[in-house]
């Protein structure tokens, strides 16, 4: 047994390695990125397991399914919205006969520290009818990752490991256990269980539904789903889930008559334990990190006159992440006094593009061209550092929706009649899910100008190498069929400001698909390289 001080993300990575993982796939996304970073570094040093970034979360999950088909263990990592991209592979993967353990790690971002929504991955587990494990600390993150592989092989389906930002990016010491060997190659024995033609799929769905009782039994017996009864308190009891556990424990000492407490970290829900804790109290307090999933699901299990205190009546905040303070009203505890001064209004300090960032130079070109055009123009943008161009003083983009949507929403806007439509997208985002949008534009001959802001890296998440080198981008774009005269690479530098402006004007004047690739390396990445 050894001790390591690790981030929650790194604890997952180490758990996977010690749990006998053979292949690791993922797409960078805060707060999940450090899992793959750890695995990539480990793999480079030790020669195994196989680890690589994928183009997007869907390709990553499908690659992991392939590993599982070969009988080996695979892990795939993404942020919560990444699972939307991978949803097709995910929902169908649940129906396959999984023999090589497949763990889908999804890091949610309640509070949207670095995301465009705060969707709760536990709904996906329920949707797909597969188990989900949720750790509350680094040690559990390690232990549960190992458990998730075993559980996946035991239940014959993928298993989700759900993390949240505060665990992913929090550091503590963990103790590790003896590593397990990788699985040998052992191809799935019956191909009918891997071909989801309707007849097979119906049989597989029936089988998955049949396994639900085993999953519930597992959750019922799990030592993570601990029920601590205090029969003398018949007023109220507490159910915690996810980091709600930590914040409850932090406050528990202040409660005079300790309520009975059930923690849930293994899903599907342990129904008997829930019935048991609810049976003898008048009020059930539910503290869950994420949407009110437990609160909504347990309605049917409980006596009608039971009072439920939780998110649905907004006593526990429905939005944002939980913390040690915002659960106190539900527990009947008053806020604590602090050293805060009442006086000065503090100026906010939002994140911003780094000084000297290539995106600043490109946005400056766009902004000036817009001002000089003398007619309406539209700029759609996308997910990455360049989204920060939405803030003053630049304030250029008008839409930021989801990965790849700059190109496709530009297409729709142009087709609806907007003029001079420009889409701004990063190199990594373009390869993630901008390519298919460009195909659509070429197929329709839409009048759009796509500006690929190529900083030769995935900068927002810390500078991962883009899946294809920058030098190949132009050929990729040409290969899709954009007119060769209207594919151009320009240097994203203020030195070339006037030339770049002329070129943008020329492409806006062209009534068809233009692609301008504005290249200059991210200065953060460049700085790291020089270190």
């Amino acid at each position: 047994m050894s001790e390591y001080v690790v981030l929650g993300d790194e604890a997952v990575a180490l758990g996977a390695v010690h749990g006998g993982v053979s292949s690791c796939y993922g797409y960078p996304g805060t707060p999940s990125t450090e899992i793959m970073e750890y695995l990539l570094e480990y793999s480079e040093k030790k020669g195994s397991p196989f680890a690589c970034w994928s183009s997007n979360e869907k390709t990553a999950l499908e690659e992991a399914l392939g590993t599982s088909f070969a009988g080996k263990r695979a892990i795939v990592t993404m942020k919560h919205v990444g699972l939307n991209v991978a949803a097709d592979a995910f929902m169908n993967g649940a129906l396959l006969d999984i023999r090589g353990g497949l763990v889908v790690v999804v890091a949610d971002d309640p509070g949207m520290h670095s995301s465009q929504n705060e969707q709760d991955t536990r709904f996906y587990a329920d949707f797909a009818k597969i188990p989900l494990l949720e750790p509350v600390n680094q040690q559990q993150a390690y232990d549960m990752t190992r458990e998730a592989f075993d559980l996946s092989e035991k239940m014959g389906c993928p298993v989700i490991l759900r993390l949240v930002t505060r665990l992913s990016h929090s550091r503590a010491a963990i103790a590790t256990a003896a590593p397990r060997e990788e699985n040998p190659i052992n191809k799935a024995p019956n191909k009918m269980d891997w071909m989801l033609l309707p007849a097979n799929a119906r049989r597989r769905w029936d089988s998955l539904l049949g396994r639900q009782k085993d999953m519930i039994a597992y959750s019922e017996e799990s030592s993570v789903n601990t029920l601590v009864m205090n029969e003398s308190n018949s007023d109220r009891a507490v159910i915690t889930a996810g980091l709600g556990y930590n914040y409850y424990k932090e406050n528990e000492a202040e409660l005079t008559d300790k309520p009975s407490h059930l923690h849930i970290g293994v899903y599907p829900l342990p129904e008997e334990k829930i019935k048991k804790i609810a049976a003898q109290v008048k009020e059930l307090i539910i503290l869950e990190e994420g949407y009110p999933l437990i609160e909504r699901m347990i309605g049917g299990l409980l006596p009608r006159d039971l009072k439920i205190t939780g998110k649905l009546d907004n006593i526990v905040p429905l939005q944002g992440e939980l913390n040690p303070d915002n659960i106190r009203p539900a527990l009947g505890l008053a806020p604590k006094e602090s050293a805060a001064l009442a006086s000065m209004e503090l100026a906010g300090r939002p994140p911003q593009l780094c000084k000297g960032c290539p995106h600043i130079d490109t946005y400056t070109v766009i902004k000036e061209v817009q001002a000089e055009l003398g007619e309406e123009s539209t700029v759609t943008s996308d997910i990455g550092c360049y989204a920060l161009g939405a803030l003053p003083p630049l304030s250029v983009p008008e839409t930021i929706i989801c990965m790849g949507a700059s190109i496709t929403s530009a297409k729709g806007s142009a087709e609806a009649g907007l003029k001079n439509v420009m889409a701004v997208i990063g190199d990594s985002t373009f390869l993630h899910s901008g390519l298919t949008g460009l195909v659509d534009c070429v197929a329709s001959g839409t009048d759009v100008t796509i500006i690929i802001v190529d900083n030769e890296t995935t900068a927002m998440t810390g500078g991962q190498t883009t899946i294809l080198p920058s030098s190949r981008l132009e050929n990729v774009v040409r290969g899709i069929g954009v007119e060769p005269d209207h594919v151009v690479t320009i240097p994203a530098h203020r030195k070339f400001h006037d030339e770049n402006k002329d070129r943008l004007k020329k492409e806006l004047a062209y009534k068809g698909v233009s692609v301008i690739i504005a290249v200059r390396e991210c200065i953060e990445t460049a700085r790291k390289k020089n270190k």
Partner: protein
Amino acid sequence: MKYDIILSGVGGQGVLSLAAVIATAAAKAGYRVRQSEVHGMAQRGGAVMAHMRIADGEIYSDLIGQGTADMVLSMEPLESLRYLKWLSPEGVVVTSTNPVKNIPNYPDEDELKAELDKLKSKRLVDDKSLASEAGSSRAGNMVIVGAAASSLPLSMDDLKAAVEDLFSRKGEKIVEVNYKALDLGSQIA
């Protein structure tokens, strides 16, 4: 024993490397440490905050409750005021006095100074000049750790051992400069 610290600063200032020194020292002193960090979008020049918890028993929450932190340790004066809600009425603020003015509406320096003066318990540190006195403009964060030292449940030896751990691969000279920065910081009352 428990000691909770809110660390603050501006993305890119090296708040996390400052945190690493304290965390390493606390682990060396035999304590449990839990540290919540900021990664991703907020790191780009925005306000950053980290929670560090040191204890000799179980630490449940990664986040410190409001009104319960023992110290706000800040690399920037405006940022030191942002998280006072977390500081206990008896807590201390240790902060750099050197502003990072990367926003157009940065407050007037006199106004800011007056606000800092209102704090009950504080140590205001001109980390820049002490760092150059120590021999490197980049040792400012060690000056700040030094200034915090007398309130931390850690000895100067623990802190120096942590510096040695974290900086020895950069050479003896760097280690010496950081020792000196710690010492100079620790003399601030």
